[in-house]
């Protein structure tokens, strides 16, 4: 008898404890909702709670994003809560609802939604709870930020432009003519489609550069290694350049080139991960594009902080600053040194400056 009940007792007590815990937080939540649901807050700066949420910290770009958030938080004397959800949409939603069940009056969230379809529930939740929300990268095209009061801004990057930038850099590196291959990302993502469209624009502008092949390596370093090996045997010396839709694939391609003993092929990528920067510095890689992860981690919190403390009012944010393309930077050998140590500039996060990197509204 006792052998059966002991685990049962443990289970029951755990669930009781959990129940009691959630009940408590729900109670405090109910109290808060009554007095705080105005779009422009008058929070005391020390009451603001900053949250940054990304997929995982094992990805250098997303880790640097959270570090940037920490730097901003430190500059205003606060700490950032770092959340990761392992690329799992369900877990992301759970974390968000837990946050929104707590004290939301002065809550500022800088969120990387897992995919387009994950954004609406987050936005609706924040709107209802009165939390200040900034999202980045993913949102459904037909969802307008201006329809909401608590969803302050959505920031993303123009993939067509970055695809074209590295396409042009690659064309220049191979002397304006020759055969290249493209390693595409996950084919059904917007980022992969836009970046490839950018390459096609670049090819149109460089008629002597010939696209020999385009394959997908699903944004993965290991897959890019295998695909590049195969493409090297297929195209041999005709191959002068490799265009990769992200740096991980570019680094996989570099390994394949090294294993094949080829050092005459130019490689470009996007994202500016640390290894790619080192490769550019060494001269083995030609170019990459940076969205400036630390800045992304800080800027979302900064916009939210400015509104929460009343320094900025939602009504004063121009419509074109509610959903916008941020500036991205082409990195080549001549300017790589500036990007090797990721850092944020406090001036970027000044309430008058938070939209200074805008390249225009998302059309």
């Amino acid at each position: 008898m006792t052998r059966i009940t002991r685990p049962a007792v443990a289970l029951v007590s755990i669930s009781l404890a959990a129940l009691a815990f959630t009940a408590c937080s729900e109670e405090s939540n109910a109290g808060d909702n009554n007095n705080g649901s105005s779009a422009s807050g008058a929070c005391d700066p020390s009451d603001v709670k900053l949250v940054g949420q990304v997929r995982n910290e094992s990805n250098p770009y997303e880790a640097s994003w959270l570090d940037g958030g920490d730097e901003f938080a430190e500059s205003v004397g606060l700490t950032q809560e770092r959340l990761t959800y392992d690329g799992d949409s369900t877990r992301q939603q759970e974390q968000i609802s837990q946050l929104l069940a707590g004290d939301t009056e002065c809550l500022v969230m800088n969120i990387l939604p897992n995919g387009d379809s994950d954004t609406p529930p987050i936005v609706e939740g924040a709107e209802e709870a009165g939390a200040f929300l900034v999202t980045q990268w993913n949102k459904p095209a037909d969802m307008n930020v201006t329809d909401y009061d608590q969803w302050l801004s959505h920031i993303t990057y123009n993939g067509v432009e970055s695809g074209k930038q590295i396409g042009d850099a690659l064309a220049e590196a191979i002397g304006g003519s020759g055969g290249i291959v493209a390693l595409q990302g996950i084919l059904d993502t917007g980022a992969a489609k836009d970046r490839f469209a950018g390459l096609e624009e670049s090819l149109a502008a460089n008629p002597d550069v010939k696209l020999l092949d385009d394959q997908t390596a699903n944004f993965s370093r290991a897959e890019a290694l295998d695909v590049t090996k195969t493409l090297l045997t297929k195209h041999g010396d005709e191959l002068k350049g490799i265009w990769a839709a992200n740096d991980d694939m570019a680094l996989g391609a570099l390994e394949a080139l090294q294993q094949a003993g080829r050092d005459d092929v130019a490689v470009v990528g996007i994202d500016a991960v640390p290894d790619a920067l080192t490769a550019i510095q060494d001269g083995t890689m030609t170019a990459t594009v940076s969205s400036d992860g630390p800045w992304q981690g800080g800027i979302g919190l900064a916009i939210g902080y400015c509104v929460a403390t009343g320094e900025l009012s939602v009504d004063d944010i121009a419509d074109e600053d509610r959903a916008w393309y941020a500036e991205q930077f082409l990195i080549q050998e001549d300017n790589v040194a500036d990007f090797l140590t990721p850092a944020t500039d406090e001036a970027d996060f000044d309430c008058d400056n938070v939209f200074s990197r805008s390249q225009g509204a998302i059309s």
Partner: protein
Amino acid sequence: MTSPAEDVDVAPARPQPRRGVSFRDAGPPIALVVIFGVFAALSSDFRTISNVQNIMDTAAVLAVVACGITFVLMMGSIDLSAPGIMGASAIAVALMVANNRNDNDLGLIGVLVAVLLAAALGCLSGLALVLLKVPSFMTTLGVSAVGLGVATLMFAGVQPNISDAMLEGWAVERFLGFAYLTWIAAGCVLLGYLVQRYSRLGRYAFAIGGAEEVLSLSGVKVAPYKVAVFTLAGAFYGLAGVMVTSQLGAGLVQAGKGYDFAAITAAVVGGTLLTGGRGGVLHSVVGVLLVTVLVNGLVQVGVSPYWQGGVQGLIVVAAVAAAVLPQRRRNQVTK
């Protein structure tokens, strides 16, 4: 349904239910030869020596993972722990050989420790299976998460890049035209085959998959053998993680991503049954080559990347269907 007599060897040294090459085992190798022939006819780039080398080099890691998973499948269990165990061993080895994160330079000892760590994680799956009676599907999924967790902790935000000449050399140096990694994989296949064919562990793994009740009724304690099989599988995944690190020149948490289902697919394509008791290391190797030839061939022939995934899936399903047609009834259940 009575199974047809399959007397290939008239004087068996000891009772060995499936010896030699029966008609039913011939399906996957024939499919491999046919697919290879079709691609060779379609593409002049495919039938070059350098491309054959490339296929073998590409197949190396998957072959080692498949060696490990085959033993588990033979027992009638399933193993989804490869991604986590490979990730943990990849990061561990990258941090123990010469690298950019610390001053370690353990060389071969580092490789050994990483493989032992992986074996310990595999052992954990086995223990959870026999002691807690959790289905292997769940325990191995859990251990995969544990492995990824361990890997993420060791990763600590900065990717370890290796500078160890020996480990980097494995992917670059060649012997008789093939990379060292390919020879390591061949060694693993040979070892796996010997264990499967001649050791008690291998033969009991078969027997557990065939009829576990009969075995325990005959007084054999199956639990230790189950744990040992998962430990062995873990060690193979660990070595595979080391090999990925050698290829990529860096320790990645995602080193083993997708290898669990790729290896299961390869094993099943090669004729190993998910219900256990049938197949083996050599079967799985045929499956690995089939899958690798397919991926390589579709690129060489120039099939659009938008079509490749679908075409690949169709050919795999067709190959499995053709190979297991005679044993349809046994294929329907998974333990």
